[in-house]
């Protein structure tokens, strides 16, 4: 399950990087690329958050919320 979460994060980072390239290029084309990449970035991030909630609800993933040694 960790692999899926990390894979989504890598795609999010890629979208953010792609938006940066668009911003640096400038002009109409660059601006369009930037906006589309940022839209993909936020959509994926919201999906990841909802996926984490769902995976936790289904018991596929456990948060690190308790100290392992007491």
């Amino acid at each position: 399950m960790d692999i899926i979460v990390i894979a989504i994060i890598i795609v999010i980072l890629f979208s953010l990087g792609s938006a940066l390239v668009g911003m640096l290029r400038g002009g109409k084309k660059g601006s369009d690329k930037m906006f589309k990449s940022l839209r993909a970035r936020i959509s994926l991030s919201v999906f990841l958050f909802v996926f984490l909630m769902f995976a936790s609800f289904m018991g596929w993933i456990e948060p690190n919320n308790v100290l392992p040694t007491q």
Partner: protein
Amino acid sequence: MSNQNYYIPHGTYWPVIGSIGISTTFVGLANLMHDVSWGAPVMGLGLTILVFMLFGWLGTVVNESISGTYNKQVDRTFRWGMSWFIFSEVMFFAAFFGALFYARILSVPWLGGADNNIFTPELWEGFKATWPLVNTPGDIGQGGTAFSTNFKLVDAWGLPAINTALLLSSGVTITYAHHALRKGHRNALIAWMIATIALGVLFLGFQITEYGHAYHDGLKLTSGIYGSTFYLLTGFHGFHVTVGAIMLTVILYRIQKGHFNSENHFAFEGVAWYWHFVDVVWLGLFVFVYWI
């Protein structure tokens, strides 16, 4: 600006004022750390000079931009300037995430005898390689712990999840603001910008509350590698949200002044990208600190 090849800036006193501000700030800070009585006021004076410089210098740049002084070459230099700033930010957070990964994946297991470190446990008898690291090697001989064992991480579905939802929502609202700007919908743009700033401020409020809980439960900056990486990462992230919210407020002010149009709005693009970056850093923190 007639020369399309290069832009030669006019003479200005702002860099000198900035240098005076920075020097004064650090003289004040150094003395404050040595408990000298005039340290704090001098540092305050230095910061005031810095803020004055920022208003003055950036105000000059804005006025030059809207009066049409800049050409395409200047536009490129702004974009490159932003890219170097972003590069430094990425390296900054990469170093802190690197410290977290190094401690969790390599150094703490090594102290517990992982890989070829079979004799290490002989040095610190009773050391347990766990994450969060409750007993640092130095605590073993002292009979203490890095932080109170009563401490429990705030439930991942408590404040951290609320904060993630808030920051992701602000990512959605700034995307709508961006869309509105590109379509020339001014009122929608202003409304989405206000929503983004409000969500950012709300995030900071909840973050302060979470720090209060963590401190109250005994997790401090001095609580071993876990406490220091936790506060270093979340603290600098919070600082970046603060700076981002200030920048968004400035952009909102400039939108109301009519500085941007649907084609020419690089300042907005720079700040929007920065906000998305800060959002992604938080998502990384949420996933790696609370989940994986």
